[in-house]
C-alpha cells in the first residue's frame, strides 16, 4: 500500500491546548480531524507535516447549540450533521450538501471543519509523488508550471467543498481561534481565489465552529453535479437560499457556486436580479444565465469543462424551481440518485 511519511503526534483535549501546540510548533504542524483529506494527501506527499495535532479528543468541537440560529462544532462528523434534525428541518440546502459529501464511510470520519478547509483539488495535483515526478510536478506543489493553464501565474486548483457554498448561501459564519485570540469570519469571506493560498485562516488558527443565522422565512437548497451518486467530489455545486414574501415575491436571495473556481463564491448579481421578482420560468432562466456567466470551470477535474459550464444554468434552474415549490423529486433522483 501507499505509505505515510514519518510524523509526530499530539492529541490535546481542549481548543486552548491545541492552539498552544500550534503556536509552539509553527507552520510545520498541521491539524487533523477525520483525516479523510489529509491522510491520502500525506501518502501522496502533498503535505508532510512534522507534527499532526489531532482534534479527535477535543469535546468542545462536537457541540450543537440552538439559539436564534444554530451553532455547530467543527468537529462534528458529516454523518452527525446529516443526522441532526435541526439542520435537516431549518437548513435544507446545507443538509443536502452534507448528505452528498463523498460516501457514507467518509462522512462517518470526515468533519464539518475538515470539509470547509478541504484542500483544493486538481487532476495534476491529486496524484502520487511518482506520478507528479513524471510531469515534473506542478505549480501547486514542487513545480513551476500550472499544467491546466500553462500561462497562468496562479494555481487554478478547484475548491471542492460541498458544505461551503451551502453555508455561504445561508449567510453562515465560522469562528477561528488561535493562541492570540479569536475572530469570526463569514464563510463567504473565508476563501481566496488561489489554488495554493485558498483560505484566510492562518496556520495557527483552528476553525472551531460554524454559526448559522436564524432561518425563519428562508428556503434553501443545494444541487450537486458529479458523475456518480456517491464518492465523487462536486464538479459543480449550486446553493440557493431565498426569502419569499407571502405572495411569492423574492425578498432576499443568495446564490452561491462551488467547484467552478479555486473558491466557493456568492453570485451577488444573481440574488439582486431575483429581488422583487416572482420565481417565474423567465426570471429563473435569466438568473440561471447570470449565474452561469460567473462559472469558470477548468480542465482539472472530472467531466468535460465546456459541458460543465453549459449546464450551470440548468442546475440553477433546478435549485430555484425546487425553492418555488415544484416537485423536483424525479429530477433529483436522476441527478443525485437518491432522495434528498
Amino acid at each position, binding site marked *: 500500500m501507499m505509505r505515510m511519511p514519518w510524523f509526530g503526534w499530539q492529541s490535546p483535549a481542549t481548543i486552548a491546548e491545541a492552539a498552544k501546540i500550534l503556536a509552539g510548533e509553527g507552520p510545520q504542524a498541521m491539524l487533523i480531524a477525520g483525516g479523510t483529506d489529509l491522510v491520502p494527501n500525506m501518502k501522496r506527499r502533498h503535505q508532510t507535516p512534522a507534527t499532526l495535532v489531532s482534534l479527535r479528543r477535543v469535546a468542545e468541537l462536537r457541540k450543537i447549540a440552538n439559539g436564534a440560529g444554530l451553532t455547530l462544532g467543527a468537529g462534528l462528523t458529516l454523518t452527525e450533521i446529516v443526522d441532526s434534525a435541526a439542520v435537516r428541518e431549518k437548513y435544507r440546502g446545507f443538509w443536502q450538501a452534507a448528505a452528498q459529501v463523498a460516501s457514507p464511510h467518509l462522512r462517518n470520519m470526515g468533519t464539518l471543519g475538515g470539509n470547509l478547509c478541504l484542500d483544493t483539488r486538481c487532476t495534476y495535483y491529486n496524484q502520487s509523488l511518482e506520478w507528479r515526478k513524471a510531469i515534473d510536478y506542478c505549480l501547486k506543489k514542487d513545480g513551476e508550471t500550472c499544467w491546466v493553464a500553462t500561462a497562468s501565474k496562479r494555481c487554478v486548483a478547484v475548491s471542492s467543498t460541498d458544505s461551503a457554498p451551502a453555508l455561504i448561501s445561508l449567510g453562515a459564519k465560522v469562528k477561528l481561534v488561535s493562541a492570540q485570540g479569536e475572530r469570526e469570519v463569514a464563510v463567504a469571506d473565508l476563501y481566496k481565489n488561489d489554488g495554493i493560498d485558498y483560505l484566510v485562516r492562518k496556520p495557527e488558527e483552528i476553525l472551531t465552529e460554524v454559526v448559522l443565522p436564524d432561518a425563519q422565512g428562508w428556503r434553501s437548497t443545494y444541487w450537486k453535479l458529479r458523475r456518480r451518486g456517491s464518492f465523487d467530489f462536486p464538479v459543480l455545486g449550486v446553493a440557493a437560499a431565498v426569502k419569499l414574501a407571502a405572495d411569492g415575491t423574492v425578498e432576499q436571495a443568495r446564490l452561491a457556486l462551488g467547484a467552478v473556481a479555486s473558491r466557493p463564491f456568492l453570485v451577488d448579481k444573481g440574488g439582486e436580479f431575483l429581488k422583487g421578482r416572482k420565481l417565474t420560468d423567465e426570471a429563473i432562466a435569466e438568473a440561471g444565465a447570470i449565474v452561469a456567466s460567473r462559472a469558470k470551470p477548468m480542465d482539472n477535474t472530472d467531466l468535460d469543462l465546456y*459541458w460543465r459550464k453549459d449546464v450551470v444554468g*440548468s442546475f440553477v434552474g433546478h435549485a430555484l424551481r425546487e425553492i418555488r415549490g415544484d416537485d423536483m423529486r424525479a429530477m433529483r433522483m436522476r441527478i443525485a*440518485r437518491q432522495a434528498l
Partner: protein
Amino acid sequence: MNAPAKPREKTRFDTIGKPRRRVDGRAKAIGQTRFADDLVLPRMLHAKLLRSPHPHAIVESIDVSRAQAQRGVHLVLTGAEFPVPYGIMPVSQDEHPLARERVRYVGDPVAAVIAVDEQMATEALQLIDVKYRKLPTVASPEEGLAKPEPRIHDYGERGNIHRNQSYEFGDVEEALARSDHVFEDLFFYEGNTHLPMEQQASLASVEGDGKLLLQSSTQNPHYLHRQLARVLQVPAAHVRVIATPNGGGFGGKCDPGNHEFVVAKAALMLGRPVKICLTREEVFYQHRGRHPVLMKVRTGVSNDGRLTAMHLQTLLDGGAYGSHGPASTFYTGVLTPVTYELPRFKFEACRVFTNKPACGPKRGHGTPQPRFGQEVQLDKIAERLKLDPAEMRLRMVTQPDSLTASWLHVGSTGLAECIRKVVEMSGWKERRGKLGAGRGLGLACSTYMCGAGVSIYWNKMPHSAVQILLDRSGQVTVYCGATEIGQGSDDVLAGLVAESLGIDPGWVRCVTGDTGITPIDLGSYSSRVTIMMGNAALQAAGRLRDTLAAAAAEALDTLPDRVIFSQDRVFAAQDAGKTMSFIEAIALAEAKFGTLAAVGSYAPPKPPGRYKGAGVGPSPAYSFSACVVETEVDEHTGWVTVPKIWIAHDIGRALNPVLARGQVIGGVYMGLGEALMEEQAFRRLPPKLSSALVHRNPSMLDYKSLTSLDMPEVEVALIEYPDPNCPYGAKEVGQGPLLPVMPALANAIHDAVGVRIDEIPITPDKVLRALEKKEKGEAPRVGPESFPSVPYPAPTFVLPPWEGGDGNELKGQEGRKAA
C-alpha cells in the same frame, strides 16, 4: 477423450439447477478466505518496484549503491538479473521483469528493493539513481502508423505496427456491389481497465526441499509456472505456483506480472520469503485491459433487412507490450459472424504499439468493441429500412449446427429465444416509442465462446484435467488446476462431481489452482472453465461411479448399469428398497478394487476451418445474449440515466442459478460502467514544455466506475437449451452478458432523443453536443470522423462453406478468380 461424459441415467437432478449457497460463500462472507495479501510467513521480506517516470527512454545507467547500503535493505535487483524475456504468448516474448535497456511507458519497472518492511523498501527506492535518455513517444495508433521511428520494439510487422492481418471469406466487394444498401459507419471504443477489488499480490518462498513456491493472485497458474521456469532458468519441476483465490480477475491477472518474477527471483537469491502487493496505481500500470479500438464497418443489406456481406476494419491501440495482443487482434473480428447469418465477411485488423501500459484481455476480450459497432449499425439499418430492430434480428439469427462464412461451427443457440424473452420482459412492443419525451428503449445481442479451441502454446494435450480421490469416510477430494477468481469455479466443480456421484456438494472438498498438486487446467480465461474442467470432472466422476456400481451391484443383486446414485445413497434401479449408503458403496468398492481414484481430462474438438489463423475463434459451444436498456435523457444537459435493464442469456443449463444470475448481473454492471464512464485515458502535456505522457486517473476515485447507487434494476432470464458438448449442457456466463449492454444503451439513447453516439463511453457532454447538432439541423451524431490509411496486407482468401470451400485458403489471385 474428446467425447463429453454423458450423464447416463440422469433425467432428474439432485443438485444441478437448484439455487445453492456457493461452496466458498461462507468463507468469503465472513472474511476467512485468505487472499494473497493475507499470507504471512516467518522471516518474510517485502518488495517494492521502482518505475519509470518517462514514457519512452533508454536506460543509460542504474546506480543502486546508495539503496543497497540503506538500513533494512536486503537486496536491490535490476534488469541485469533478468536476461530472459517473457510474454504470455509465444509470439510476443517482449517483456523483462525489470527493464534492461529501454522503458516504454510511465510505470515500466526498472529496479526492485527487497527490505525488512514495505516502508523501508519504499524509502530505499528514492535512493536508486537511474540515468535516462528520453526518446520520442507514440500516444495513439494513428501516430504510431505515421511515425515508424523510433520503434518501440525491434520486432513486429514493421515500424510500430505489432500485428497486421486480413481475412476474406468470399468476395466481399462483389457482394456489396450488388446489395440493395451499403451502410458505412465509424465507431470508437475507448480503452478501460478491469478494476478488480483485489490488487495483485504475490508471496514467493523456498520450500523445505529447496524448490520455489509462488503464491499469487493469478488467473493462470499453469502459464505462470511455465514462464517462471523459463525466466528464472530453473527446471519446471522445481517450481510450484498456487493461485490464491483472486479478488476478481476479469482478465487482468492472466498475464504473468513483473512483480511475480521479481519476488520469485529474490526469494531464490535470499532464501527468505518475499512478498509484494501492488498499489492501486500500479494495478493501472499492469493493466492488460480493454484495447481502445477504432472501427470501420461496411455492411451490405437487402431491402428486407438481411445481411449480404460485411467488411470490418479495426485499429487497436496496443500499449507498450505484446501481452495477449495477437489474440486480441483476432478477437476484434472473429466472433462477429456468429450471431447473424452473414454470407460473406472480410476482416482486417492492425495493432500498433504505443507508449502506454499494455492492453490485453478484459472480460469479452476484443469482442465488445466490434459488437458495439455492429449492433449500433444494425439499429441504424432497422431505422432506415423501417423495420423493428428485434424482428429484423430474429429473422437472421444463425441456425443451430451451422457454419459461419469463416468456418466457425455454431452448435446450440438460444439467441432467438433470448430476443423473444427480452422483448416480452421489457414490453418492447407495447412501450417502445410510447415512453414520452427523452425516454427510450434500445436492444442489442451478442455471443461469446465457451473456451478457446486451442491452447496459448501449441500442444495436443488436454486443456483441463481432474483427479478425484474417494476416502472411506465418504470424503470426495477433487483436484484440478482451475482457478477460483470469484466466478465460482470451485462451486461448479463441487456441484458437477456431487451430481454425478449422487451426493450432497458438502461431501466434496475442492483442491484447485496448485501446480504442485493438481492436474492441468490452462486457467480462468476465455470462459473455458465450466465446460473444460466440467467435462473432465464428469469423466473422472463417471469412471469412479462405474467402479462403485460394479461393487455395489453384487450386494444389491442387480447389474452395474442398473445402479443409481442419488441422495447420498446407491439404489437398484428396479427396486428402490434395495439400497445402501454412499459410504457403504465406497467400502465395498475399496475392498474389491483397492484405493479409489480416477482421472478425467478434456480437449476441445478439432475446428472445421483449416486456413492459417483458423485456430482463433472456434469453441466447443457459444453462448448468446440479448439485452434491452431503458434510458432517460435530459434534453437540456445530455444527462443520461438508466432506470432498468432486461437481459436474457442462453446458458445451456444453469448449474447453480444463484451463481449464474450473479454472473449475469455482474456482467451488466461492468458493461454499463464501460458504456457510461470507464476510461483508461492518458494525458500528454504540451510537447514544447514537456515529454510527459501519463495515465490520467490511476485511482479508484478518479477512474469512474458505477457505485451501487448508479446501478439500475436488472431483470435476468436464463435461457436453458442444454448443449451436447457441455457438462449437463452448461455453457458460459462469465463474459457473454457484458457484451450487449453498451450497444443497447447507445440504441436506447437514439430511441429517446434521436441522436447517435458512435463511441464509448457515452458521456453527457457527447449527448449534449449531438443534441445541439440536431437542433442546428446537422447530422445528429458524435463519433469518430475518419479512419486512417492502414497498410493492411493482402487478405488470406477462403471460400465460405456454401460457395464450395473446404476450409483451406485459396492461394493467390488464380485461386480467387477460379472461385
